[in-house]
Structures are given as structure tokens and as C-alpha cells.
């Protein structure tokens, strides 16, 4: 009887144990079903045994396995409970070997401390850290995004590991390009500075000896011209002419370089008055060449007065210079307000741009040379036929550009040239 009682008691305890185990198993099944569990860790005396499961929600798993990021679940002690294939590939390990190991084994020594600290501080809040992982044949910079995952009422971490190699390389490239850009900017600044220096040297130091040449040859001429042989007189004249040409060159180069440097000052300008003044400046040549300059109503616009004057001067002197020998030069200047910054723009009363047209009946030019017309020191004609430095139209173009405008030239050989200019009425 005693023994029966004893057996009965043992059986009852066993039933209780089994009921407990059944409840636990039911809980586990429930956890697996709801996707809360990826693996079991059975803590043995000296090691962790891990059992992974193929969950019912296969699509989710396929997604995790196929994505390009690494996906890892770890315990708060840092043991890998689950890893996708991608992470194993990243660290160059066999997938089955990864699970159950310590995650910090895959972290490069210098990053381990950061990771451990974050793991220690983990309170269920989402977070991100950048780490270096030990890859199979190189170190991999990664972004580790982690979040809370319930694990049998115990806290665990789900982590997404993004390979930053491409981003880091791109960033590095970008930094390299930025550095290069900075260097180029510096070089540009230096060369601008050099240009300024050159302009200053040209303005003072080059003009000084030149003026002496002019003065002394002028004095020689005064003293000797009556007693000199005709050939020697022509030599002296050539010295004077060359010096004069040099002087023009220096002044033109100086003007050109000034345009590159200073910031522009704009004021409201009445182009009619400015053009009238310019035409008056050419009075003598106009009379000499029997030239006519006609111009219609020009608008008021915001511009640099000195530069606008130079623009008019250059274009008018250009037309007077390149006149046909058998024809009286005729220059027509017209302007109208247009609706946009284009040579094809339509006239528009309330437009924001001015389209100016300078038309002459001079020697014109072959349209195939149009690109070189505005270049510095570019000449279409020998300087023996037409004087000039080859800077005038380069200056003109620069002035237009300084005013955010457009300029173009159209020529017909033996018939004339047309210069069209678009200028904004207001400068920003």
C-alpha cells in the first residue's frame, strides 16, 4: 500500500512535470507561429546549443535570405541566434558556423569596444552604429541598424548590416574631387593674382621705357629731320610708329585685364546720350572718311557707364576702320526691347532685355572666321592694311559677358558686318 501510494505520488509529479513541459511546448509553438522566435538556445553546462527553425512564414524568410544586407539576431550577450546567408558571405564564414558564435568575433579589433558598449547600454531603443567587420579578404565598413526583438520574454537584438564599401569609396572619391577642385580654385586665384600683377607692371614699368623711346625719337626728329637722308628719316618714323603701336597694345591689354578683375558697378544709363557722346568723339574721322552714323531710339538700362562707352567706341571704330575704300562708311545702330535673352526673341514692350544691332557697309568678313573675331589678339587682316591690336572686339565681348549679355557677329565679305548684342535692362 505504501509503495502504491509512493508510485502514485511519483506519477502525479511526473504528470505535473509533463503538463509543465506541454505548456512550455505550446508556448514555444505559439511563439514560432507568431514569428517571435527564430531559434532556440539550449544552455548546456559549457556551451550553447542552438536549434533553428523553418518558420511557417516562409515569404518573410525568403525575403531576409535574398536581400543584399546582412540580417542577424543576437542575444543581449552578443551570441548570434540567427544569421542570413548574406552576412555569412560578408564575413566569409559557413552559415552553420556563424550561429552560436559571438558576434564580436566578426568585428575588427578597433570597433569591438564601441559595439560592446552599445550592447551593454541596449535598452530596447533602435539605434545605428558604424563598424568595421573582418571580411574574408578585406575589412568591410558597415552600418549596423539594430532594434528590439522579444525572445521568450528576454530581450534580444535584430540587426541589419549594410555594406558601406561603395558609399565609403564614393565619399572618398568625392572628397578627393573636392580637394582637387580646391586646388584648381587656388591655382585660378593665383593666376588671377598674377594677371593683376602683370597689369600693374604693364601699366607702370612697361610704359616708362616706352615713353622714353617716344620722347627721345621725337627729340631726334626735331633736331635731325632736316639733315637726315630720306631712308634714315623713314627709320626714325618707324621707331615712332612702333612705339605708338606698343603703347596702344599696353593700354588695350590693361583695359582687358581690368575687365577680368574688378566687380562691376552698375547704374541706370541713357544709351542715347552715351552714343551721342561717342559719335562726337569720332567727329574728325567721320569727317575725314565722309561717314554717316544713324541711330534710332535706344533704351535706358542698368550698366557700367565706362564699359558701355568702350563697347560703343570699339564697335564704331571697328566699322570705321574696316570700311570699303570706294564707299563712304555708313553705320546704323538700332535697338528694341525683347522678351527673352535670345537673338531670336520677339520685340516686347515690357520685355526685360535690349537687342542692339550695329550694321555697317564695310568689308565684312567670311562667316567661317566668326569664332576668331572675338578672340584676344586675333586679327583677320594684316596690321599693315588695318591698324589695331586685335584686342578691341575681345574687350567688347568681355564687356557684354560682364553684363550677362550675348554678342554675335554676322558678316558678308565685301558687303558689311552686323553685330548683335542682347543686354538685360536690369542687372541683379
Amino acid at each position, binding site marked *: 500500500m505504501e509503495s502504491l501510494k509512493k508510485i502514485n505520488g511519483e506519477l502525479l509529479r511526473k504528470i505535473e512535470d509533463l503538463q509543465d513541459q506541454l505548456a512550455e511546448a505550446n508556448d514555444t509553438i505559439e511563439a514560432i507561429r507568431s514569428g517571435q522566435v527564430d531559434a532556440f538556445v539550449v544552455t548546456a553546462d559549457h556551451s550553447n546549443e542552438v536549434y533553428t527553425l523553418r518558420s511557417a512564414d516562409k515569404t518573410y524568410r525568403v525575403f531576409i535570405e535574398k536581400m543584399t544586407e546582412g540580417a542577424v539576431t543576437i542575444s543581449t550577450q552578443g551570441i548570434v541566434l540567427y544569421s542570413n546567408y548574406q552576412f555569412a558571405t560578408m564575413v566569409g564564414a559557413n552559415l552553420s558556423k556563424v550561429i552560436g558564435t559571438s558576434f564580436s568575433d566578426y568585428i575588427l579589433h578597433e570597433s569591438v569596444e564601441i559595439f560592446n558598449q552599445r550592447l551593454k547600454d541596449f535598452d530596447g531603443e533602435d539605434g545605428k552604429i558604424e563598424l568595421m567587420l573582418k571580411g574574408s579578404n578585406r575589412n568591410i565598413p558597415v552600418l549596423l541598424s539594430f532594434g528590439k526583438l522579444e525572445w521568450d520574454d528576454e530581450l534580444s537584438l535584430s540587426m541589419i548590416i549594410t555594406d558601406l564599401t561603395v558609399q565609403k569609396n564614393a565619399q572618398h572619391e568625392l572628397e578627393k574631387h573636392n580637394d582637387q577642385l580646391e586646388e584648381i580654385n587656388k591655382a585660378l586665384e593665383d593666376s588671377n593674382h598674377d594677371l593683376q600683377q602683370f597689369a600693374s607692371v604693364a*601699366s*607702370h614699368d612697361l*610704359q616708362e621705357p*616706352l*615713353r*622714353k623711346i617716344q*620722347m627721345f625719337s*621725337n627729340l631726334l626728329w626735331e633736331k635731325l629731320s632736316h639733315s637726315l637722308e630720306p631712308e634714315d628719316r623713314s627709320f626714325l618714323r618707324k621707331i615712332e610708329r612702333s*612705339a605708338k603701336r606698343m*603703347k596702344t597694345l599696353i593700354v588695350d591689354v590693361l583695359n582687358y585685364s581690368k575687365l577680368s578683375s574688378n566687380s562691376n558697378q552698375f547704374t541706370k544709363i541713357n544709351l542715347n546720350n552715351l552714343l551721342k557722346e561717342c559719335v562726337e568723339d569720332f567727329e574728325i574721322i567721320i569727317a575725314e572718311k565722309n561717314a554717316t552714323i544713324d541711330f534710332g531710339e535706344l533704351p535706358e538700362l542698368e550698366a557700367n557707364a565706362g564699359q558701355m562707352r568702350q563697347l560703343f567706341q570699339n564697335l564704331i571704330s571697328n566699322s570705321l576702320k574696316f570700311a570699303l575704300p570706294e564707299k563712304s562708311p555708313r553705320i546704323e545702330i538700332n535697338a528694341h526691347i525683347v522678351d527673352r535673352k535670345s537673338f531670336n526673341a520677339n520685340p516686347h514692350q515690357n520685355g526685360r532685355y535690349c537687342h542692339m544691332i550695329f550694321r555697317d557697309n564695310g568689308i565684312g568678313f567670311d562667316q567661317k572666321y566668326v569664332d576668331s573675331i572675338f578672340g584676344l589678339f586675333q586679327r583677320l587682316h594684316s596690321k599693315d592694311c588695318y591698324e589695331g591690336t586685335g584686342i578691341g572686339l575681345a574687350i567688347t565681348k568681355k564687356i557684354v559677358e560682364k553684363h550677362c549679355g550675348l554678342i554675335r557677329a554676322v558678316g558678308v565679305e565685301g558687303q558689311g558686318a552686323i553685330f548683335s548684342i542682347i543686354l538685360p535692362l536690369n542687372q541683379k
Partner: protein
Amino acid sequence: MQVSKVLLAEDDFDDRMFFETFVTGRTDMLLLGAVGNGAELIETLHLRNTVHELPDIIILDQNMPRLNGLETLRLLKSKEEYTHIPVIIYSTYISDNLVESCLHSGASLVLSKPDGIDGYKAMLDKMITVVSIKDQSS
């Protein structure tokens, strides 16, 4: 005819020679002397002041060692005994900035150095006007 006494500060030997040559040909100008820079000019003025023989016009080259034209001009205009003397600054190249600074500091004229005989004569004609303008106003 009134003869205007001129004192010149010019460090360039050739330019001094040009100046002397063209002034010598005139009856309305007398070159009291030519010195090599602004500092020397101030010293010369001090000496002349003691014997009551100050110039009617002071002409300064802009680019000179020790004291350049503009610096000398400012010094002269700060000294009561010299403020009445018209000062002219001339240079091979005169920038807009230089002209503005000189006029602002009290220069009567700012001129660029000529490159020929006619230009030189015209420049001296212009320089002598500062005396006649001054005479009319006083």
C-alpha cells in the same frame, strides 16, 4: 609778364632733363630746382622758407623713393606754411584711384607724363594755369 617759380621732385634722370629742357624755353616759368624725391623736397622747402623764397608751384612725380608724390602732397598740405602752394602730381600712368586720392588730398592737378614734344609743351601750359587761377581767386 609774371614768372612762376617751379620746384620739381622727380627721381628719373631723363624726365628731369626733359623738364629742364622745356622749361628753359619758356618765359613764364623758372625752375628753382629739381630734387630726387619727396623727402628731399621737404628739406629744400625748409631751407627756402628761411630765406623767404618759396616756389609758386610744386610738381611731384608719383613714383619716387622714400616719399612718393601722394605722400609728399599729404605732408605738404598738413603744414600751414606750405598749404597755399599749388601742388601738381604727374606720372607715367595715372589710375582713376590715384587721381581721386590726389584731388581729395588737395592736389591742384593730376597729369600723365606726355610722350612727345608737343605733349610736353601742352603739359607745361596746363601746369602754369594753376598759378593764374590762384592769382584770380586771391
